[in-house]
């Protein structure tokens, strides 16, 4: 008999490596370009945190993914709310809200993670945090993680769209 989670949390981190290029002696067309840590930055950067989210989320669609050992009949009464395919990814071909539950539309977003699974250079993804203006960009293979402030960023505000070509994403949007 499955036991409901008594609490949920997400441990998240970022890592940044600023680099500058060097060319070896025989570099004629970029094939011998090497990189080192950028001199002004001097090191890598990063941070780590833990977001405590709500134990009982707004529906099964709070994440695009499914556990590899999960059975649909164990999803409780919310299995029909699963908003994406069983592959655990969602195709983005136009403006798409990540919140499919109108009852939670105005709930604050406590944690958001989006991974762009596109690999081609024209498969960038743009993200809106106000439902209208797209001001964050996720390059192919890139990702975004953030903690909402608990007030201004609400579930209905988070939308994604392709920049040029269709792409696919994985995501977590938790209240």
């Amino acid at each position, binding site marked *: 008999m499955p036991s409901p989670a008594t609490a949920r949390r997400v441990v998240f981190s*970022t890592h940044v490596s600023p680099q500058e290029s060097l060319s070896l002696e025989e570099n004629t067309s970029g094939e011998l370009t090497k990189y080192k840590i950028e001199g002004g930055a001097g090191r890598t950067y990063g941070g780590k945190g833990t977001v405590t989210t709500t134990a009982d989320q707004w529906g099964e669609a709070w994440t695009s993914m499914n556990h590899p050992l*999960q059975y649909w009949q164990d999803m409780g009464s919310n299995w029909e709310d699963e908003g994406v395919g069983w592959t655990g990814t969602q195709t983005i071909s136009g403006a798409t809200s990540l919140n499919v539950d109108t009852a939670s539309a105005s709930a604050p977003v406590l944690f958001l993670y989006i991974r762009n699974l596109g690999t081609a*250079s024209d498969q960038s993804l743009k993200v809106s945090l106000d439902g209208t203006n797209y001001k964050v960009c996720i390059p192919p293979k890139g990702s975004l993680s953030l*903690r909402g402030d608990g007030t201004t960023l609400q579930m209905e505000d988070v939308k994604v769209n392709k920049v040029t070509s269709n792409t696919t994403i994985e995501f977590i949007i938790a209240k």
Partner: protein
Amino acid sequence: MADRIIYKNHCVPQEKLAFAGGDRWYQDSDCGRKLTGIAESKSTSINTPVTGTFSSTISLSSVKFVHVKNTDTSGSDYLLVNVGSMGALIKLLPGESFSSDVGSTASDSTTVAITASGTPDYEYIKGA
């Protein structure tokens, strides 16, 4: 020399089960795994990193990539990041950072404003 920024966002969703003898955190069974995405930023010019103690709004313009960190190690002071004047705020507690390309396309830039509650220490890197 050309600059580039390689950046990564990683997360580990977890759920807690209570049982006799104690509680334990497990990998979240809704998600099933950890997530990582690593990419090269569209920024090709890295400004010198800036550190300080927050005293007034920090306004950055022509930003293609931004890394902001609350470098406090304890306490409850936090930073708030507003990308592109969207109004929705990203909260950074001590030790947390936000690292992302910004701007709506793979080539353009936007503004970033950093405010705070309290007077946390900070560091940021702007990529243009």
